[in-house]
């Protein structure tokens, strides 16, 4: 029995490796469904961890972000490195793509340099075998002085042994052999030694990391290590930095290269030596399926048509097939509300439950089928390797807007619904690209805005409605391009993330991994969005429901009562038909009264007052206070704009199909004002669910607020230009 077995202390195992090395499938096999998905603190990189009891111990398995290196360029790399340095996991498992040994070993040697306990998993051993690659694991283990295990992640082979080795290593009193780490050339080693000496002398115990590693990082001018030293030993750090600078200068003069380039070169040299000894490729002409697939999928002529077909299929699946379960959920929600309606007595509480909670939460839950399907499709694209091909195809176009090829899919999804679109931006690796994509996605006109356009354009533009709506969509696209370019050169300036991107071999996806992927992300959607939306809907409900006492311009209840009595008292003897006609007439009149009452209610509610209060803001863009209130309620969901307009313009017969159109046509609204309002609806603040998604995916209130302010300002300015410009040109 070992110490850990007796004490029951938890062992932490961190999984590291290149993207596409099969890290996720190994993680899924170890943890099964007991996973916690969240974000790494302060950044929007997905953090996955799972707790399991295996080999008689409690294991905490942490999936580090997939990276190619540990240089602090991308957040993923910083997160992975800091985790190993600061959290000191008991053991780090480096997942190595056996069919791509040389590049995988680059990350592995860097992790080796961090002085932690490392186990290598030579993954995808089967792929390597079929490619005629042989790896001498025993030799590799000896050369690097660490355990090496063959695994086939997607077939669950070798995982038990991997865990066994990892646990054994974690519980041993092993210290890595210094001589089995990367040894640099004489000049570099001299530089490292010189810095090491100064570091030891001046910093001593204050140093947070291993001395040699610190010296190498200082030579590489690593900003994070420098900051950390500055934090730990402010007054002593000057001397260290001075020495590091001096050594860098010396090396640069000698080699005409930055030291970090030299170390990279040397590491690869070290790796080349290892690879030569452990790796043999059988000389047989192998058939590379992946290359053959790419002959078609990224073909000059058919590549784009096939891409468009796939995207079309994803769109169809998400928004057309999704409609069926959406309809069921809608039915369920309305069923629930009618049950509540009949069970609860008429009260404020009932109103809150019905129009606040159920309506609000219902509006989120209906997105679930779309989200599930979308994430399934995205997981499919990612797991097969097609996602990077789509970026390869689209990059030229997206680069014109200052974006990465991968931004295309989120932006396209935006036409369906912004919520999944913004969540799809997770596939982007660079945070700047991600934020920029998130900021411009709301300009893609989502499907919920369409009913508003249809009503307004249908009423005021008749036969030209289609053209008008199309122009609105185009305006959204143009503004997103402009926004992209402007932000890229101002707010989110900085070096473009280099497009150096791997095109991994195509793989048959695993159902389990697809489902876990899909469910994880959907769960986040439900949990986090649910809270914000519930709160938001209750606020909007309260604004429209209060104050309770309204001074109506007439006694509607008495009037309604009177109408009913009037008709009921008059009972002609002649025939059923006349009586039916009278009953219908009575109902129409009662409905009209009720509608007028509701309109007055809203007018006097806080929401109505708010609408009147902000009316001066909307006046210059041709929207009256009713339109203003409709737009305000549209914050919950854009579809609501139509129903609020219905209430405010006192549409008496909701059953009549074009009642709202008639009411609008009779109102003071002009075609120009309607066009202005459509533009405003296109551009102004995203709906509550989208705002919640933005908050979640950017991980900051700052970007969320910025997005709200920016979109609304753009909306106002655009509408102002169109409305006032139109008036100047004589369209009223």
């Amino acid at each position, binding site marked *: 029995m070992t110490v850990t077995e007796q004490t029951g202390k938890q062992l932490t195992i961190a999984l590291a490796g290149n993207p596409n090395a099969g890290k996720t499938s190994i993680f899924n096999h170890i943890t099964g469904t007991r996973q916690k998905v969240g974000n790494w603190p302060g950044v929007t990189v997905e953090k996955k961890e799972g707790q399991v009891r295996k080999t008689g111990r409690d294991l905490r398995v942490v999936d580090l972000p997939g990276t*190619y*290196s540990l*240089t602090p*360029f991308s957040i993923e790399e910083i997160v992975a490195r800091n985790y190993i340095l600061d959290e000191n996991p008991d053991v780090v498992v480096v997942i190595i793509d056996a*069919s*791509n040994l*040389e*590049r995988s070993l*680059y990350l592995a040697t860097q992790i080796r340099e961090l002085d932690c306990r490392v186990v290598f998993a030579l993954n995808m051993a089967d792929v390597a075998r079929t490619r005629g690659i042989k790896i001498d694991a025993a030799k590799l283990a000896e050369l690097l002085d660490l355990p090496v295990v063959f695994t086939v992640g997607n077939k669950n082979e070798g995982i038990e042994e991997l865990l066994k080795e990892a646990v054994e290593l974690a519980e041993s009193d092993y210290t890595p052999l210094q001589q089995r780490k990367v040894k640099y050339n004489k000049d570099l080693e001299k530089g490292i030694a010189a810095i090491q000496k100064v570091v030891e002398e001046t910093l001593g115990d204050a140093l947070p990391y291993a001395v040699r590693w610190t010296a190498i990082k200082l030579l590489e001018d690593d900003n994070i290590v420098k900051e950390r030293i500055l934090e730990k030993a402010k007054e002593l750090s000057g001397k260290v930095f001075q020495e590091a600078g001096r050594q860098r200068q010396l090396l640069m003069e000698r080699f005409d290269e930055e030291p*970090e*380039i030299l170390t*990279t*070169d040397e590491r*690869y040299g070290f790796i080349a030596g290892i690879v030569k000894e452990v790796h043999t490729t059988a000389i047989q002409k192998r058939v590379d399926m*992946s*290359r053959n697939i*790419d002959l078609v999928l*990224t*073909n*000059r*002529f058919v*590549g*784009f048509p096939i891409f468009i077909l796939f995207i079309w299929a994803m769109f169809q699946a998400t928004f057309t097939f999704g409609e069926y379960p959406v309809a069921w959920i809608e039915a369920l929600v309305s069923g629930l509300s009618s049950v509540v309606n009949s069970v609860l007595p008429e009260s404020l509480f009932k109103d809150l439950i019905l129009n606040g909670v159920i309506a609000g939460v219902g509006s989120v839950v209906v997105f679930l089928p779309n989200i599930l399907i979308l994430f399934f499709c995205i997981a499919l694209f990612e797991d097969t390797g097609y996602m*990077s091909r789509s970026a*390869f*195809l689209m*990059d*030229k*176009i997206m*680069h014109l807007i200052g974006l990465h*090829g991968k931004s295309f899919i989120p932006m396209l999804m935006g036409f369906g619904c912004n919520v999944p679109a913004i969540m799809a931006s997770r596939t982007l690796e660079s945070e700047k690209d991600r934020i920029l994509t998130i900021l411009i996605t709301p300009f893609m006109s989502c499907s919920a805005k369409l009913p508003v356009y249809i009503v307004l354009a249908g009423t005021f533009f008749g036969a030209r409605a289609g053209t008008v709506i199309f122009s609105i969509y185009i305006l959204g696209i143009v503004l997103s391009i402009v926004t992209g370019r402007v932000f890229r050169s101002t707010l989110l300036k900085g*070096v473009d*993330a*280099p*497009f*150096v*991107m*791997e*095109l*991994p*071999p195509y793989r048959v996806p695993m159902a389990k991994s697809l489902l876990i992927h899909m469910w994880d992300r959907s769960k986040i959607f439900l949990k986090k969005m649910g809270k914000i939306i519930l709160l938001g809907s209750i606020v909007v409900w309260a604004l429209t429901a209060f104050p309770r006492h309204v001074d109506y311009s007439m006694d509607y209840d008495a009037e309604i009562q009177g109408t009913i009595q009037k008709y009921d008292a008059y009972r002609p003897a002649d025939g059923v038909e006349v009586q039916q006609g009278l009953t219908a007439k009575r109902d129409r009149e009662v409905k009209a009264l009720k509608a007028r009452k509701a309109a007055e209610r809203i007018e006097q509610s806080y929401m109505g007052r708010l609408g009147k209060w902000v009316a001066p803001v909307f006046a210059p863009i041709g929207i009256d206070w009713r339109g203003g209130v409709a737009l305000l309620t549209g914050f919950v969901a854009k579809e609501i704009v139509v129903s609020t307009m219905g209430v405010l313009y006192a549409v008496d017969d909701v059953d009549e199909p074009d009642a709202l159109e008639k009411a609008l046509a009779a109102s003071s609204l002009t075609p120009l004002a309607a066009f202005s309002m459509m533009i405003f609806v296109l551009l102004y603040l995203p709906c509550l669910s989208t705002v919640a998604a933005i908050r979640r995916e950017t991980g900051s209130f700052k970007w969320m607020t910025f997005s709200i302010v920016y979109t609304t300002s753009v909306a106002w300015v655009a509408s102002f230009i169109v409305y006032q410009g139109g008036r100047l040109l004589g369209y009223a």
Partner: protein
Amino acid sequence: MLLSEMKEGDSATVVKIGGGGALRRRILEMGILKGSHIHVEKYAPLKDPLELIVKGGHISLRVEEAAQIQVKAETRT
């Protein structure tokens, strides 16, 4: 010549990697080093980016990034 001037199906050896900062280091880290053997697998349908085979892996680069890499073309076999 520059890597960006190479045609589909050409092979070459890397002579020098220019550019600076993150880009240069990233290129190196992906295994494109001085002396590495590279093969231009294809250009994307819109002529940018291009796909390379380096050390057995497929990597894509933008043309502007490839223009930072000097290569010595190998005669086709």
